[in-house]
């Protein structure tokens, strides 16, 4: 084999969109393939876990792992790739901060199983069979990965060197990140490989954002046809721009939709949801409690809105499940 640097891709609790994102590099992917050997990529190549296990520790230059960690299998693979790689990259919102799967942290395993395997209208399960980690079957034992109570981001399982945010990461930032890694001129560990400024600061509609922004009523995207040239927050739409890192090329804004926050916070913010909550609440144009509460009713799902991609990586990480002692 030539001495091209080795690269691996893996998916954990994710939708597959991050895999698409790699393919979306289009012809640029040929440059990547020319520069590296892809030694492991379950979605596209037929290498097995045993192939990875057989490699020397640290022999992979970089592993790009997308998806959150929900099961024991995902945890095992994350730890394996960590051991085999010089650089571990959390790829996409789910690996970065938990992503959409981490919204399940508002429930626990029992509640999730109960809904998924018993109570949903489309479920037929009269015997109440639940997933088991091991089940005897015809004299053999059939196994499934264990299912954790809490969804974790990749860096809550093992040490992560770099983050490529986004749901999914855009081709530009993927190409930029790969270039950075191949250049050998590595940024400090823990860096998120995008600009460290808020999306608002590079928003094409920044000019139309009033100095003193006041919101009287929150609107959801289906309730209004937004003006294409005006700041979406000024139109009452919950745009996450003030609390979200830039680098995406404001694709949603270009599509006249508010930012939903998939790039996570800038390095100065610890909890994206709380920061956004703070910004939104200060813009609200009311001073008495009843009027404030009426306006806040316009945000029917605050956690799903403010923590859509970041619940696992937030300060509280999950809903409190432990019963309270008397």
């Amino acid at each position, binding site marked *: 084999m030539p001495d091209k640097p080795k690269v691996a891709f893996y998916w954990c609790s994710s939708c597959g969109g991050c895999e698409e994102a790699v393919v979306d590099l289009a012809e640029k992917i040929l440059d990547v393939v020319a520069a590296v050997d892809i030694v492991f990529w379950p979605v596209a190549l037929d290498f097995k876990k045993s192939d990875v296990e057989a490699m020397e520790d640290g022999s992979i230059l970089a592993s790009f792992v997308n998806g959150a960690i929900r099961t024991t299998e995902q945890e095992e693979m994350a730890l394996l790739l960590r051991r085999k790689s010089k650089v571990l990259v959390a790829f996409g919102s789910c690996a970065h901060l938990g992503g959409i799967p981490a919204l399940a942290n*508002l429930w626990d395993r029992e509640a999730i199983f109960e809904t998924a395997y018993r109570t949903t209208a489309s479920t037929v399960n009269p015997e109440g069979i639940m997933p088991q980690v091991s089940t005897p079957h015809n004299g053999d*034992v059939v196994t499934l990965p264990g299912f*954790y109570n*809490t969804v974790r981001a990749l860096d809550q399982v093992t040490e992560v060197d770099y983050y490529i945010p986004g749901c999914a990461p855009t081709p530009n930032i993927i190409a930029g990140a790969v270039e950075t890694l191949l250049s050998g001129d590595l940024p400090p560990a823990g860096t998120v490989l995008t600009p460290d400024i808020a999306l608002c600061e590079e928003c094409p509609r920044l000019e139309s954002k009033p100095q003193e922004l006041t919101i009287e009523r929150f609107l959801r995207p289906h309730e209004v046809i937004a003006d294409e040239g005006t700041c979406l927050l000024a139109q009452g739409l919950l745009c996450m721009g003030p609390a979200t890192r830039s680098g995406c090329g404001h694709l949603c804004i270009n599509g006249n939709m508010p930012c939903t926050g998939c790039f996570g916070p800038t390095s100065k913010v610890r909890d994206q949801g709380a920061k956004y909550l*703070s910004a939104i609440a200060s813009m609200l144009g009311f001073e008495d409690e009843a009027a404030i509460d009426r306006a806040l009713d316009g945000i029917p799902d605050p956690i799903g809105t403010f923590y859509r991609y970041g619940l696992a990586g937030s300060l509280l990480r999950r809903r409190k499940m432990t019963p309270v002692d008397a």
Partner: protein
Amino acid sequence: MPEPMDKPAAPATADGWEPKIVAFFCNWCTYLAADLAGTSRMKYAPNTRVIRVMCSGRVDPQFVLEALAHGADGVLIGGCHPGDCHYQSGNYKALRRFRLLKRILLAFGIEDERIRLEWISAAEADKLRDVVNEMVAQVKALGPARLGIPPEDWAVGLEEEADEEVEGVTV
């Protein structure tokens, strides 16, 4: 001068657990009320850890979450009465953030009594005493918040499964 309290605000729990309450008091009103309570030799529950901020509007919701995530059992925010803010509108901002933060905390499974916003002027030492005593009693009744999950416990939820483990299968 108010009567000194002879008894503690609420009896200690059987195992001697005492709630920790992080209190953010504004420099111009509530902190001065706490000062007045001290110089007036008022006695009240010693469970608050007071952090002085210039204005209740300075209390970033991240501070509240951070306190809870690091083991606080409750958070008390004290500011000037409406219309009295040293910076005109800081307390209104605090109120709006607080109303929204409450909704978030409820969704996180955190009881209503664990977070409180009160307007306490520099002259209202007795109100400060009563608010702290009442909140400590309420939080004591609720028990520890236990929101700070240590990293080693993040992966909990497999214990029962491990018990059911079939020979030769590792979880």
